[in-house]
């Protein structure tokens, strides 16, 4: 049932609304490395053909001293290599990149190494999943399912929707709010902050200072709010993650108040735009593969493998930009020198023909879908089970209930970030909305 996606053919650069793409001129191809071209918003709609070129040299040194790693095996090796750090304080000299990392609250565990990383992650995991809280995610299922149904109900009575703004965007923030224990009346504020932070992500220097200022401001608001919230949960703990983080003390000690705030911020940010993009990319992929859309209506369990293939084929996180080599590392004939920044091109690795046959074909029926969509090693996505369920529920509901959905623009306009890649809008026309199945 596999077929070639239109995105595989070289596509025109249709940068979304000009206002948000700090467009870098594409006329200087000659002087641009293939990695720079990948970062160029003009290539956002289809970076995959550039990854082919990128993989010709599995470990590439950029002019600024960054090493870009693009083949599956080499990426997996570095994800499990103790000589590779996630802590940017280990860089030989400061480094600015189009950055997921930039957006992360300072010193939350995504940017720390073992043992501190492991300790904080364990303390957070204690209130989120196995072995101590194995049923937390499962227990959120009914609520998540109701949220999804409600969002799709909201598409009735019209014939055009923006899947990003109307469905994909609201879902993850609401889920995180429930998980953390954010009072419902505060949810709108949370949504606003999450949006603001995402909007300030992106490459390019043009309005960098302005964006940084805006992000700092939002981050401070968020921090103040979280501090108060944590204090409230400490006084009056509930059965939520934040209360757990704020009050628990065990063999690993307790989480310091600043760490609780940083962790809560990390969960919000790391789980927001990523999930938005997964849902939007999923709808886009379905609309580009009508036979799969049809199959999914009759075979709802297919969504499980569909989402897995999606994480391989259109992953929301295209690179991990914040690794640092602690030692000279020999890899695929290149020596990554100690202190250098290392970029792991996850999206390229998941489409490495040496790893998986016919990598540019979208095929949910593969016997094995081992992909890098959630990273790997000790930083493997903390929220992966939640993200999977959210995407599965949303895509199943959209495929099952939208009557004759069709894309308004292909490719859709993209957000500028090359790291967290996804459509800014995904307009879809349809004939109606079927009632929810009981």
């Amino acid at each position, binding site marked *: 049932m596999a077929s070639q996606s239109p995105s595989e053919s070289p596509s025109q650069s249709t940068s979304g609304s000009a206002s948000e793409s700090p467009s870098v001129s594409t006329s200087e191809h000659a002087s641009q490395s293939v990695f720079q071209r990948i970062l160029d918003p003009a290539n956002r709609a289809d970076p995959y053909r550039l990854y082919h070129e990128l993989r010709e040299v599995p470990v590439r040194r950029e002019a600024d001293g960054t090493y870009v790693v693009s083949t599956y095996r080499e990426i*997996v*090796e570095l994800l*499990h*290599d*103790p*000589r*590779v*750090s996630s802590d940017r304080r280990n860089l030989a000299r400061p480094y600015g990149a189009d950055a997921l990392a930039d957006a992360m609250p300072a010193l939350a565990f995504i940017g720390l*190494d*073992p*043992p501190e990383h*492991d300790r904080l992650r*364990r303390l957070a995991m204690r209130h989120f*999943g*196995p*072995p101590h809280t*194995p*049923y937390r*995610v*499962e227990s959120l299922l009914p609520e998540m399912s109701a949220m999804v149904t409600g969002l799709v109900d909201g598409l009735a009575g019209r014939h055009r929707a923006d899947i990003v703004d109307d469905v994909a965007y609201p879902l993850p923030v609401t889920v995180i709010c429930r998980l953390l224990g954010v009072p419902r009346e505060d949810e709108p504020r949370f949504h606003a902050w999450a949006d603001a932070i995402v909007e300030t992500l992106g490459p390019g220097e043009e309005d960098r200072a302005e964006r940084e200022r805006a992000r700092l401001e939002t981050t401070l608001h968020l921090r103040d709010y979280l501090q108060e919230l944590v204090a409230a949960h400490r006084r009056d703990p509930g059965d939520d993650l934040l209360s757990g983080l704020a009050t628990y003390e065990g063999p690993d000690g307790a989480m310091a108040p600043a760490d609780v705030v940083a962790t809560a911020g990390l969960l919000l940010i790391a789980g927001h735009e990523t999930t938005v993009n997964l849902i939007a990319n999923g709808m886009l992929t379905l609309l580009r593969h009508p036979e799969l859309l049809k199959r999914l209506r009759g*075979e709802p*369990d297919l969504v*499980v*493998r569909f*989402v*897995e293939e999606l994480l391989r084929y259109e992953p929301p996180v295209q690179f991990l930009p914040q690794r640092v080599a*602690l*030692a*000279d590392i020999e890899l695929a004939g290149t020596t990554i020198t*100690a202190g250098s920044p290392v970029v792991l091109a996850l999206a390229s690795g998941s489409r490495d023909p040496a790893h998986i046959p016919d990598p540019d074909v979208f095929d949910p029926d593969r*016997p*094995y*879908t*081992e992909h890098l969509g*959630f990273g*790997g*090693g*000790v930083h*493997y996505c903390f929220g*992966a*089970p939640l993200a*999977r*369920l959210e995407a*599965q529920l949303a895509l199943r509901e959209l495929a099952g209930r939208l009557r004759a959905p069709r894309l308004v623009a292909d490719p859709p306009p993209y957000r500028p970030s090359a790291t967290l890649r996804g459509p800014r809008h995904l307009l879809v026309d349809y004939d109606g909305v079927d009632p929810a199945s009981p």
Partner: protein
Amino acid sequence: MSGEGPVRVLIDLTRCQGYGQCAFLAPDVFTMHGDEAVLYDPDPDDAQRERVLRAAAACPVQALHVDRMAMRHRTASGPATRDGAAFRRDGRIVIVGASLAGARAAAVLRREGFTGSLTVIGDEPHPPYDRPPLSKRVLSGGVPAEHTLLPRLREEIGAEWLLGTAATGLDLAARRVRLADGREVGFDRVLIATGTRARPWPDPAEAALRGVHVLRTMEDAAGLREALAAGPRRVLVIGGGFTGSEVASVCRDLDLPVTLVERGPSPLSGALGGVLGEVAAGLQRAHGVDLRCGVTVTSLEGDADGRLRRAHLSDGGTVDAEVAVVALGAVRNVEWLRGSGLAAGVWGVACDAGCRAVDANGLVTDDVFVAGDIARFPHPVFQYQFMSLEHWGNAVDQAEIAAHNMVSDQTRRWPHLSLPVFWSTQFGVNIKSVGVPTFADEIVVTQGSVAERRFVAVYGHRGRITAAVTFDQGMWLEFYRRLIERAAPFPPDFPHVDRREDPRPVPAGAPERIVAAAGATVVVTGHDPSERRASLAPGR
């Protein structure tokens, strides 16, 4: 996707890195024990099917198999010679031993395109089942012993399964396997996969006391489970290897008082050396095991009803216990090969790196293959020393190599070169190992903390890395595997994350174990090379 009969689950725990995604998505089937060890029900309720499929799809290393144990490595072997093609089409293959290695080999043979007749002979009455859960979730009562059947193998392979029938002889000249019931089965090629059995308590009368158990089979596990569930006042574990230590761990999980008696200086020291043995000892004591090292059990004493009540120790002490578990290692099932002319003895059956059996003269045979716990093979990485590995991953790897080679022409055969890997789950800790920890003179803890019992220990032999063992740090194991394969220098000299212990190596305290198994004698006769023969001295 639903209602397709019972769900069967198998995790390839050699691949599993403890990401816990399965435990999130199907919490009634998979549970995390500590940070990293995953325990599961191999035969869950049908209602769990949807969740199990979700879990399998989500496993980041795709180690979770549902309903069938698919294979992912290189497939088929290209065009064969005319003879090779004819053999593939209608040759006769017999596999003796219907457990992990035998079943796996049968599946690979079919996948490699072997369409001839395939007969699998096993003396146990059950279809192939998985042993590792027997000393873990089965003993703790988490799953019944009969839930451990391997994923749907029998139906799909299309083989004749002669179960409940022991092979009693191998006639290489006539190419026949003799069975206990008098039948004979002819073959063109044969695979020997008869594994091992538990070494019994040496005194038969004492071994027969009620309450004295061994642990190897489904029946053993069911019997021991019943004994533990009855709430004995104390359990005595004789032997502190992996099985004994896992049994002691389950006893503590069940809150049963347990005494473990180990002849060596510490538990696991035979496999991991003295340094980690001490760590294991600390782990056991912290969990309330009454650990007695440097001591042996000299006799078991029963009451008038033939029920165990006391054990006498070499230090003059006694232990009152109602249940004793004899965990003194394994005995290789080679008796049926007596007189076959193969190099079969207490060490197992010798073979080359391509799993072809070696005869008593040390000559490699062409049509006899060996795989699993019974095989004794030379490993190039470890100075071509012959080794026997009683590890799950080795049985699977070797079965795949043997099966491939059985249906491949000489030039397309594969050597079994994968490094030994194993895991054990005890006291909430996942212990994993790569390489050969006993092939070492020094050890250093590179990552993590011994006090926390989360660390990576690296073993070295004459300046190169030969093994690594992790306690709840399994995600790093692959990195060290590559260092071993590259013969990287020991001690490791690079900066890396999580360095907390003293970087100076200490003696590993490895027992001298990679020497030939004691107790076997080979006699060489004749002078002229054409007359020289090796033969086995009659055993015991």
